[in-house]
């Protein structure tokens, strides 16, 4: 259990101090502090269950009772007759608190509550996941009786209930502290579980079937209720043997009557992207994850603090492993970034680092068979070095490092391209991008750190989201925005084609914008006219923020317009990419026009600066022309104009024109790939060099704020980071790259940190009007859902089951003209093929359809051949069949 004893950073200094005495120790705490927190300040731990520093006080478990005395009007300190819940009562001047340490009454009250909590607890600690790290177990030892006087019949339930594929509930272990339901309602706003029933019930359910109070999802089968049709349903079973007697788990959350609600991949009503946090804050073993249940004992685990690799938030996590296997990940506690919450993707998607397709040894192309075969490092490095050197001479090597690198690895890639390959043909953006975006990044992002922060979002009067769905693309930002909005400090507006679930939960004002129209809408907001006057005014407020997602790069003129809007209103601007490595890649110059620290390649002074840091003699050493971007590199490699490719972690499905890109790699001359796992592109590589996944290396992610997020190595292995592999490769090519160790890299990075010279000029691209689809065509709106078909979630079926079910969203008008309703299947046809998905009718512009960019059965670049803003037709529809919950 974690506690936050210190006041939050950024607490205004003028908060009044209140002096109170706790167990004879005087302490002054800010006004509004709860007694339980004031006690923590002086090291007094009051036992508690329902209390959580980031949730609203509940006062439900009554474990934290203390005696409280306050001065009356005459100043006589009088003790209140009853013990008080220290988790709900704020300190007041002159208050005298006696905890269990100094008050027998408080101590007896706590022992009494503890005994009551345990009478219906199964005491199955030896088989419980929580055993060994259980607040109930620990506090029963510290504040409980040595033996129980309860000799009667316990309350029992069939167990567990499978609430989603990932979350399992053992109701008999639950002490009904309601942390989970309060978390879901207060923090992400997804109340997928709540209290049901009333009271403690009766042994054996003898009380005319009255349901004891319990956590659940109102599943009629689990509760034995009659449904709307009057029929009493049997509890559905999973078919998997998971109960204590080998009995099957009950299946909860069947969408009998959900209607238009969104479903998850198993056909249940969608739960939450943040549900895993309930497991971590559960003070008993009532909530467990399907992934971890019965797998391990906490005291067998070795923990390493780390940083999540799935998005640009840089969330603190803890990785728990046992004998070389990661068993689970937990949220770390970082008040400045993710507080104590992480997304389910950050928590559960870690198996990808240990799948069978993780490359163990270098692979080289066998000359006779043409197959990739294992090779020694020295052989592979020699081959790769020779091939790359040849290719560099023959026309050049394009460098595509991908967006998943640590800062240190990205730096090595950047230096390798410039120093070893002598090229600026380098671009990390393995996704839809534009030259305008490269200019934007060089102008407004590189070298700008910690301008807009999480704390800044929390205190911003207004936040405008452009090309960004925080709930899907940066979950931690979503949580922080929601916190700010609920606190009444912040309002949010969003440029999007429709109001998403996520934007509804941050009460965002929707500026309905069809794909491609963002630039003109931004210009209209900057002009502050008409409908947009109010929004422009909000952005002029001190501290207002514009968060722009990487997707705006797809709109010509979009990033130009957003810069102009920021300039016109004075709002601060932050760029939020999707991947953990993107921000760091910008910082170290993994772009054709950029050197480390925001130095433009075209700036001679900048080149001299970098060259001297790199120990090169003359500016001639560094190329001064802006290089090829991602698309040009692929095209020219395919046509043979470039003689080679150096590839990092790139998933071909991420690239617009996935098929063409794959063809280009196939046609390319000499191809070297640095990868963790074999990918679709491995089959075209001449040499594949294995690089370490995050658990096998230390490094730093730069999050969207520009905040360095260093993490340590979990496993000691012989795996090499990108920086080390590139260092070896450079050595093979006769260059001392100097990136063999983190220390060396950081020494150079700190030398390159400050750049006060000219930046890249701002992009100046005229906005083009949104494409108007011709009759019978629709414009595609799309982005990636948090849980989708990405390779980073491979090997985790329990998590995959909690993903949003892929749907195609159409407007009510389109639905009626197509003759479809919610749940019917609709086929969307693009230039390359079609995608067929269930329909979700959504208020949105009539000629727009939305589909997920890369979910199971809906990988648009490959299957349709279009992305956001593309044109598609709608074809045949199919009636809905009654869906059933699977798994």
């Amino acid at each position: 259990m974690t506690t936050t004893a210190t006041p939050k950073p950024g607490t205004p200094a003028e908060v009044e101090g209140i002096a109170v005495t706790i167990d004879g120790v005087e302490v002054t705490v800010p006004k509004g502090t709860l007694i339980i927190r004031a006690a923590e300040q002086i090291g007094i731990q009051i036992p508690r269950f329902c209390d959580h520093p980031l949730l609203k006080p509940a006062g439900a478990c009554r474990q934290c009772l203390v005696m409280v005395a306050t001065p009356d009007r005459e100043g006589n300190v009088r003790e209140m007759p009853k013990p008080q819940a220290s988790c709900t009562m704020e300190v007041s001047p002159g208050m005298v608190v006696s905890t269990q340490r100094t008050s027998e009454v408080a101590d007896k009250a706590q022992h009494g509550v503890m005994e009551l909590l345990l009478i219906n607890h199964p005491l199955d600690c030896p088989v419980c996941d929580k055993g060994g790290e259980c607040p109930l177990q620990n506090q029963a030892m510290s504040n409980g009786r040595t033996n129980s006087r309860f000799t009667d019949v316990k309350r029992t339930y069939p167990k567990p209930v499978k609430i989603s594929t990932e979350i399992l509930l053992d109701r008999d272990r639950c002490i009904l502290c309601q942390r989970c339901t309060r978390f879901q309602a207060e923090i992400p706003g997804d109340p997928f579980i709540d209290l049901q029933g009333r009271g403690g019930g009766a042994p054996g359910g003898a009380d005319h079937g009255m349901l004891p109070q319990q956590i659940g999802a109102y599943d009629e089968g689990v509760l034995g209720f009659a449904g709307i049709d009057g029929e009493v349903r049997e509890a559905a079973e999973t078919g998997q043997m998971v109960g204590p007697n080998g009995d099957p788990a009950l299946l909860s959350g069947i969408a009998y009557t959900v209607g238009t609600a969104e479903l998850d991949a198993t056909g249940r009503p969608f739960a939450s992207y943040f549900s895993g946090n309930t497991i971590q804050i559960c003070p008993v073993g009532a909530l467990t994850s399907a992934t971890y249940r019965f797998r391990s004992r906490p005291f067998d685990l070795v923990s390493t603090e780390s940083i999540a690799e799935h998005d640009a938030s840089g969330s603190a996590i803890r990785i728990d492993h046992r004998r070389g296997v990661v068993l689970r990940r937990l949220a770390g506690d970082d008040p400045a970034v993710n507080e104590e919450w992480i997304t389910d993707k950050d928590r559960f998607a870690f198996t990808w680092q240990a799948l069978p397709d993780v490359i163990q040894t270098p692979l080289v192309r066998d000359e006779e068979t043409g197959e990739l075969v294992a090779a020694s490092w020295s052989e592979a490095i020699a081959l790769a070095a020779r091939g790359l050197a040849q290719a560099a001479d023959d026309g050049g090597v394009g460098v595509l490092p991908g967006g998943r690198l640590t800062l240190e690895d990205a730096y090595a890639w950047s230096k390798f391209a410039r120093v070893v390959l002598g090229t600026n043909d380098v671009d990390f953006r393995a996704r839809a991008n534009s030259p305008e975006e490269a200019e934007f990044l060089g102008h407004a992002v590189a070298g700008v750190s910690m301008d807009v922060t999480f704390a800044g979002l929390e205190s911003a009067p207004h936040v405008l989201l452009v090309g960004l769905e925080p709930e899907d693309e940066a979950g931690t930002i979503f949580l922080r925005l929601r916190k700010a909005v609920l606190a009444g400090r912040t309002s949010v507006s969003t440029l999007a084609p429709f109001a998403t679930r996520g934007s509804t939960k941050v009460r965002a004002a929707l500026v309905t914008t069809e794909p491609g129209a963002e630039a003109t809408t931004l210009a209209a907001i900057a002009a502050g006219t008409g409908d947009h006057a109010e929004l422009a005014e909000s952005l002029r407020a001190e501290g207002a923020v514009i968060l722009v997602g990487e997707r705006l790069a797809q709109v010509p003129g979009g990033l130009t317009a957003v810069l102009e809007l920021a300039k016109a209103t004075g709002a601060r601007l932050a760029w939020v990419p999707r991947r953990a490595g993107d921000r760091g890649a910008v910082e170290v110059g993994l772009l054709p026009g950029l050197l480390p620290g925001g130095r433009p390649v075209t700036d001679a002074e900048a080149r001299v600066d970098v060259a001297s840091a790199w120990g090169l003699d003359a500016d001639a050493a560094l190329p001064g022309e802006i290089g090829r971007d991602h698309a040009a590199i692929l095209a020219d490699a395919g046509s043979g104009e470039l003689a080679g490719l150096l590839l990092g972690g790139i998933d071909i499905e991420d690239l617009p024109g996935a098929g063409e890109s794959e063809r280009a790699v196939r046609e390319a001359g000499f191809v070297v790939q640095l990868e963790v796992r074999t990918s679709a592109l491995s089959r075209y590589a001449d040499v594949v060099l294995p690089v370490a996944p995050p658990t096998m290396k230390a490094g730093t992610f730069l999050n969207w704020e520009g905040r360095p997020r260093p993490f340590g190595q979990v496993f000691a292995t012989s795996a090499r980071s990108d920086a080390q592999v590139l260092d070896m490769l450079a050595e093979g090519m006769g260059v001392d790259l100097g990136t063999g160790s983190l220390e060396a890299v950081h020494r150079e990075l700190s030398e390159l940190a400050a750049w006060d010279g000219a930046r890249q000029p701002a992009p100046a691209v005229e906005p083009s009007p949104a494409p108007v689809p011709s009759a019978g065509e629709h414009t595609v709106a799309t982005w990636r859902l948090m849980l989708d078909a990405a390779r980073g979630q491979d090997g985790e079926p329990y998590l995959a089951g909690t993903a949003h079910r892929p749907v195609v969203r159409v407007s009510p008008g389109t639905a009626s003209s197509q003759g479809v309703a919610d749940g019917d299947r609709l086929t969307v046809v693009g230039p390359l093929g079609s995608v067929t998905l269930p329909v979700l009718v959504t208020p949105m512009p009539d000629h727009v359809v939305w589909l997920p960019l890369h979910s199971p059965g809906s990988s648009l670049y490959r299957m349709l051949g279009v992305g956001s803003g593309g044109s598609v037709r709608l074809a045949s529809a199919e009636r809905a069949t009654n869906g059933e919950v699977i798994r």
Partner: protein
Amino acid sequence: MTEQTAAPLAPVLSDIWDAERPWTLSTYTSHHGYDAWKYAIRQEPASLVDTVKNSGLRGRGGAGFPTGLKWSFLPPPDGGPRYLVVNADESEPGTCKDIPLLLANPHSLIEGMAITSFAIGSHHAFIYLRGEVVHVYRRLLAAVREAREAGLLGSNILGTGYDLEITVHAGAGAYICGEETALLDSLEGRRGQPRLKPPFPAVAGLYARPTVVNNVESVASVPGIIRGGIDWFSSMGTEKSKGHGFFSLSGHVTRPGQYEAPLGITLRELLDLAGGIRDGHQLKFWTPGGSSTPIFTAEHLDIPLDFDSVAAAGSMLGTRALQIFDETVSVVRCVTRWLDFYSHESCGKCTPCREGTYWLRQVLHRLEAGQGREGDVDLLLDVANNIEGRSFCALGDAAATPVKSGIKYFREEFEQGMHTPAWELFPYGANALFTELAGAAR
């Protein structure tokens, strides 16, 4: 209500119960009904608050908090809505005053609500009624409709420009919803569980707006105070417990029923009015104010039934629900039934009440069956002490009360539960009232 004797009855709310169709507007108005409202609506609201404050009216829902003072806790008007909510979720075992009142004379409540709403500046008032009493629900709906059609409610009432709507809400039958903040949550459509206080309802009540929550009888007493004046009202009752109130006698009395009398009357006087304990039997124990007030015995017959005297004697006036038990009754059985109730009605929010009632109930059933174990009586007391004063709301205290007071006066009966079933010590047929009635009919 039977023959008058020397002991003073004070029929005010029950005054017209014997009139023709007393629940109709016409009967009510022919007995000065709505005169107080017609007068009050032309007064300064603040003066009405003062009148009620000065009358000494204390809340009739059990706790006895001064009604006028409660009204004056509302923050000054800020232009937003303020609400009056009447707590008609009467469900305490033994308590049966509001339901008969609403059945016989619903307009007394409607008039009281009109005056109260006007006094506190509310334009929308609610009655949260126990949902099981469908007949009373119908009466209330009809009464509100009648009053509305007569221009006594609605918009521009009596030409004064004052608007008031009354909504009658039927609860779903949970004792916890009689707790005022749980009632508000339930009325808002949420799960009925008590709220954390502060903020108190006066500051953030229904829909987070300033709200007064009053008992039916408190509000229904307001028109009488306005019409009769402070002196008339405070002429009844005792120094600190002014006015009249219902005393609901049930159990082993000759004539059970509602006795409306000045506060401070004694059980001895009430028993005289009710024809005494049933023939051939003696008083064993009784509750002054429903099952959640510590029990009294024959030695408490002369305690004045006002808030302070009852408290001084170790119990609470509560809802003046006098449950009378004669010597045929097993205290163990009685307390066990009460605990069945509290265990069933515990909302589950807090540990002591949810788990404590679960445990107490099992121990009590064991004792009732004569299968008690060594130390069970002390265990009962200790568990009750671990509930009392430790729970989130007063329901937990209420559950601990009968156990503690039962053992206090009749510990031997609980001890006997170690070896002899209660039904052998106190044959259950002997105390069943229906056998007596059946006998009388023969």
